[in-house]
């Protein structure tokens, strides 16, 4: 077990820069999730940590040791691949012990290691089978077994759940979290699924275009996004990002949105950044769960603002009901209790929890605080 540090890492293929100066650090036993849309460089970064791709410049440090120049097998890491990458011609047992065999570990020691892992993952009865005879979930377990048996300093996971069906994915997610608790080993985990990122991570790095947009705890990422990209990417349904204008009303700052009949005003927190935007456009961001029916609103909040809104469409989703509201010239989504009484094409009073609202510069996308 060890901490992992990535310092000023660059990676280019010819003239195309894929990673542009990555700096990350995860403490011993931490769970770092790299998340972002496809092409953001997260998998490349993982491969650079693994040593499967050479870095152009920068350093990867595991524990106190720089491993940038080391062969993957010498870095004391283990990796679980998206496709599981089980050797098709070998039995489960052979798959798990292949690395030890290459390193020349003795037979009895290998045997013991296989047994230990098989028990931990409950795959004992699969040991003699070939990968082609396993279900998706079983393959996933074997792939984890192959990683676990190495007992590495750092585990690397490359979108390990993306090939599973929805239900199995949730089960395996829990299982990975449980394993992490038990082993306490540092993990770096790549996913494009923001829910996976929020549920698993102790630290999240949101990436885009080879740059880390924000690096922080799941809570920071979700509630305190540094820019519009992070705000939009994390959370489902996505945060409502509505164009508005900063105005002064009744001695306070307000944001003015296009409501269903004319202007709708909501109070802004009094900050220098926002005051400096007087009369200018800003983006008003509010998550669907902070925009709800008054009965379902967070009663601990002191900044609830009720406004009449025109509901276009109602989408019951079992545990919640979503209402699509025309606001700021766009469609905004409100998240209501499942049994909220609401009907489409009517005007309804909805509550904005302004304590949760965030604001962005419409041009740069940066957060205005």
């Amino acid at each position, binding site marked *: 077990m060890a901490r992992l540090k990535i310092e000023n890492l660059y990676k280019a293929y010819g003239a195309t820069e894929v990673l542009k100066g990555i700096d990350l650090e995860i403490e011993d036993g931490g769970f770092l999730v790299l998340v972002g849309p496809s092409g953001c460089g997260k998998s490349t970064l993982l491969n650079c940590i693994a040593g499967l791709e050479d870095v152009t410049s920068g350093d990867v440090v595991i524990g106190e040791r720089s491993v940038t120049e080391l062969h993957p097998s010498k870095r004391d890491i283990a*990796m679980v691949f998206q496709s599981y990458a089980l050797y098709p011609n070998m039995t489960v047992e052979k798959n798990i012990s292949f690395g030890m065999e290459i390193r020349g570990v003795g037979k009895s020691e290998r045997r013991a290691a296989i047994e230990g892992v098989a028990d931990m993952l409950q795959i004992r009865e699969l040991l003699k089978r070939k990968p082609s005879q396993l279900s998706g979930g079983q393959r996933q377990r074997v792939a984890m077994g192959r990683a676990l048996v190495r007992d590495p300093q750092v585990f690397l996971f490359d979108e390990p759940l993306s090939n599973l069906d929805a239900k199995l994915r949730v089960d395996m997610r829990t299982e990975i979290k449980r394993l992490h608790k038990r082993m306490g080993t540092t993990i770096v985990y790549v996913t494009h699924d923001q829910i996976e990122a929020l549920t698993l991570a102790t630290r999240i790095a949101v990436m885009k275009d080879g740059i880390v947009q924000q690096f922080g705890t799941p809570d920071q990422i979700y509630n305190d996004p540094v820019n519009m990209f992070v705000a939009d990417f994390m959370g489902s349904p996505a945060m409502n990002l509505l164009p508005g204008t900063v105005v002064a009303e009744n001695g306070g700052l307000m944001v003015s949105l296009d409501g269903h009949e004319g202007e709708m005003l909501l109070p802004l927190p009094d900050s220098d950044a926002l005051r400096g935007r007087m009369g200018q456009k800003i983006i008003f961001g509010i998550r669907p769960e902070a925009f709800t029916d008054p009965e379902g609103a967070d009663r601990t909040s002191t900044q609830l603002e009720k406004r009449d809104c025109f509901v276009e469409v109602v989408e019951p989703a079992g545990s919640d009901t979503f209402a699509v509201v025309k606001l700021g010239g766009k469609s905004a989504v409100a998240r209501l209790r499942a049994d909220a009484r609401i009907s489409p094409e009517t005007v309804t009073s909805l509550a904005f929890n302004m304590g949760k609202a965030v604001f962005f510069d419409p041009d740069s996308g940066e957060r205005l605080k």
Partner: protein
Amino acid sequence: MSGAAQDIAMKGSRATRIIIYTVLILFMIFYLLPLYVMLTNSLKPLDEIRGGDMLALPKNWTIEPWRAAWSYAQIGVEPTGLRPYFINSIFMVVPAVLISTALGALNGYVLTKWSFRGSGLVFGLLLLACFIPFQIVLIPMARILGMLGLAGTTSGLVLVHTIYGLGFTTLFFRNYYAAFPTELVRAAQIDGAGFFQIFWRILAPSSAPIAVVTIIWQFTNVWNDFLFGVSFADFDSIPMTVALNNLVNSSTGVKEYNVHFAGAILAALPTLIVYIVSGRYFVRGLMAGAVKG
């Protein structure tokens, strides 16, 4: 050659079906007729061929033409039959096929899993080499074989066929390995396996289908080659096709058509057997050679 017939059958009348089958059967006759003629006439005495009906079954069955073709027919100046040339062909084909297939496999492995700056160019050069008219290499090749002391030897022919087979064997393996998951190679790297270990332990065990295709393709091409054989071989190395041509076109004596037919079938037999035993792979090879990927 996968996939079932699709549901666009012309739902025609009985008459259309009969026409379709008639055309199909006529073409079957077209393709089978030469083989049938060769086979039946190789079992007739010579006077029956000259006087009679090419399509008729033999009246007097005889296997003498086969015996003659195999062991004592006059070929060139020696009454040796085709047997020594058959053996020459075997000694030429087996090493040429094995070496070019092995090199093709390694090349395909490097080109897909360890590509480096310039490896694409190497592949392009190999690929283009598949299609050159071999006439263009005849003159310099003859000189080089002479310089290497390989002129007129079976080893020389093995070298020639290996070199000019490399393009296709590489192409086959490259296309196959391109579809082989790279993550497996990465997993093996993390497990500490080296370049050759990964090839032997991970890729090679999964390569049987493409190896069969490649071997059949190479076998058929090398066995059936005539140009290199006629250009570079001496008595000790003349392959079957060249010997057959010498047998058929020898200007001396009476034309023993029945012996020629027997000889032709003998020359065709190895590739025909391969085709019958593993037609599926044969077709796959043809396709892979024609339609890339």
